[in-house]
């Protein structure tokens, strides 16, 4: 999002920033709680070593562009306005324990896990796909951070403008990268994922009376997060020509996404001071806190177990073991 030199200036200038990182977004990549998910972080860090994963491939390579560095000027004006773009940008720019690019990592692990022979390496197309997955997810985060403004506000309007343009930039870049993969099915799958996360924003899971609260949550999360991870796993297996594992990969992707998201909801629910506003309170009104937590933990564990079961179809290697560790780490 910023050029290399702007990046360095940004980092040094805002180390003492007053924006507290503990902002609760139920949709944020990592839980807001002060309690670290150490086993998760551990599992992810170890997994990165398996695939030789560069931790911040996203930020610098794709955006070393003069035009984009104009954004740094505008972003500075947003400090203190509370626009979500600032937090998203911080998460992207700061590369520390909290900001692993886990979706890309899952794609790489899936690519490697499916290799039957030890000599086979992850294909360049599969690495590109991992990057595309992160780009699409980032665009999603940025675009959903656009604020509805009813009254004119120059700074927030600028924030929205930046959010729209940055998101568009990442989406356009994803499309260009997708085209280079020379695989029509993969283009279709990722396009479907973008369509799905868009649709997810229009589902009102609180108001609808039709299905059970849990079904509604699952439906929305499947569209919002599950679709991208599932389709990315499916796509990487297509690219790797691992035909017999494609369906398993897709299912694994969905289960792990739901387990992951369920865990995020639980952690943020437990640590959130204002519980009444949390989505779990709204989904399960008039239910005691401990019961909500217990029920949702059961949901999470079901998805983790389902993911682990699917993994047994894959060859036993470092990558599939790493995937299993990540899944199990969600259960803590």
């Amino acid at each position, binding site marked *: 999002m910023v050029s290399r030199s702007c990046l360095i200036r940004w980092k040094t200038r805002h180390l003492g920033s007053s924006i507290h990182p503990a902002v609760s977004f139920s949709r944020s990549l990592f839980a807001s709680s002060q309690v670290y998910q150490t086993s998760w972080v551990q599992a992810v860090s170890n997994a990165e070593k398996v695939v030789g994963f560069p931790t911040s491939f996203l930020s610098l390579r794709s955006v070393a562009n003069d035009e984009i560095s104009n954004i740094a000027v505008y972003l500075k004006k947003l400090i203190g306005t509370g626009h979500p773009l600032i937090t998203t940008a911080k998460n992207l720019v700061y590369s520390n324990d909290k900001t692993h690019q886990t979706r890309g990592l899952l794609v790489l692990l899936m690519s490697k896990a499916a290799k039957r022979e030890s000599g086979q390496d992850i294909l360049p197309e599969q690495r590109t796909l991992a990057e595309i997955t992160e780009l699409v997810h980032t665009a999603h985060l940025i675009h959903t951070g656009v604020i509805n403004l009813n009254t004119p506000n120059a700074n927030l309007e600028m924030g929205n403008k930046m959010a729209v343009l940055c998101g568009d930039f990442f*989406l356009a870049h994803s499309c260009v990268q997708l085209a280079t993969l020379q695989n029509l099915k993969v*283009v279709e799958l990722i396009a479907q994922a973008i369509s799905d996360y868009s649709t997810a924003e229009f589902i009102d899971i609180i108001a609808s009376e039709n299905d059970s609260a849990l079904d509604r949550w699952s439906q929305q999360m499947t569209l919002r997060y599950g679709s991208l991870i599932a389709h990315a796993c499916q796509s990487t297996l297509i690219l790797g020509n691992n035909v017999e594992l494609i369906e398993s990969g897709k299912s694994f992707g969905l289960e792990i996404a739901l387990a992951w998201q369920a865990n995020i909801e639980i952690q943020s629910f437990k640590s959130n001071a204002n519980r009444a506003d949390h989505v779990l309170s709204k989904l399960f009104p008039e239910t005691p806190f401990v019961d909500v937590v217990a029920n949702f933990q059961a949901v999470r564990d079901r998805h983790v177990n389902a993911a682990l079961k699917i993994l047994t179809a894959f060859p036993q290697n470092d990558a599939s073991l790493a995937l299993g560790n990540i899944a199990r780490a969600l259960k803590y």
Partner: protein
Amino acid sequence: MVVSARITNFLAYSSLTVSRVSHLGNGSLRYQWLLCRNTSLLQLRSKIQTVVPSITSNVSVPKENIPTADALVRPDLEGLYEDIREGLTNTQPELRQIAQYYFNGEGKAIRPVITMCMARAINYHLDQNAPGVIQKQKKIAQIAEMIHTASLVHDDVIDVADSRRSRPSVNILWGQKKSIIAGDFILAMASGMLARLQNQQVIILLSQVLADLVQGEFMQLGARENKDERFAHYSEKTFKKTASLIAYSCQAVSVLSGADSTLQSIAFQYGRQLGMAFQLVDDLLDFIATSAQVGKPVAADLRLGLATAPVLFAAQKFSELNPLIMRRFQEPGDAETAFRLVLRSDGLQRTKELARQYCNDAVTQVAQLTPSPYQQALVTLAHQLLHRMK
């Protein structure tokens, strides 16, 4: 195949080069557009027997004899907007409503018209009659219109617009957040359609449009410090924001017809030159139209802080415009001053001249196609565009 597409694009794009000619004497730099064509096209030109109608003459093309492009391709575009809306139905009701909102068929549909006209002209030239081809070309027209509309939705949020085509804009009706997501949805559906055309090269071409559209917006954000670079910056921005979609759509339909790289280049160049002219005429009309209207003294572009061709040309005569351009006409009275100076200068005249040059080149391109009603319609389109300037 991928490599040749890239080379084609590079040749096509670089075949209109900018050359700065230094004016000795008063020491100021003057921009001169040189139209250089790559050699294969030059060779082709010498073989052309067709007489190219002269745009600069006052003789107008008799309207009764030559159908307009619009009329010619109307059967092809029948149901274009219904089809697009159909493709957007399979989703949540509110998202469907927002996504379909701008596809009510009240826009000019200039892009689908150009695309289908080029498709028909190329098909005629290649004697391409397979029904599958024209079906796919119609899809390109749909996809191009969807990409264009998705960018309009995002533009309305970015520009904090309140109306479009005499109706409230999407952001007014549904808020910024949902509008942006709806734009993403339209884009995703267009990409899916693109994939199902089963042509790798076409996907590469049209995804380049997406990158160009975004980069054009970014270019619009940043002003060039050096006034000598400004016109080149403006031209590149104009290509990316306006001409790119038209150029690549034209090339895409030619690819689907089975065109070789030379023919693809003709299609691309026509689309590109026409697209550039289109924007120049728009920029021109922004000045002419408002001076004719009561109660709207200042051009909309100036109010948005944009320095378009008329202003850039005027700044070469009135250097006092340069600081105004740099501060994007933000100070009170800036826009009015700039407007006055543009009208006093030869800025409008030179913009017209440049648009004429682009149209001439577009016509020269399609003159190389086998004569047909469609080929003629492409010529007429360029005529009509220039006519808008009167």
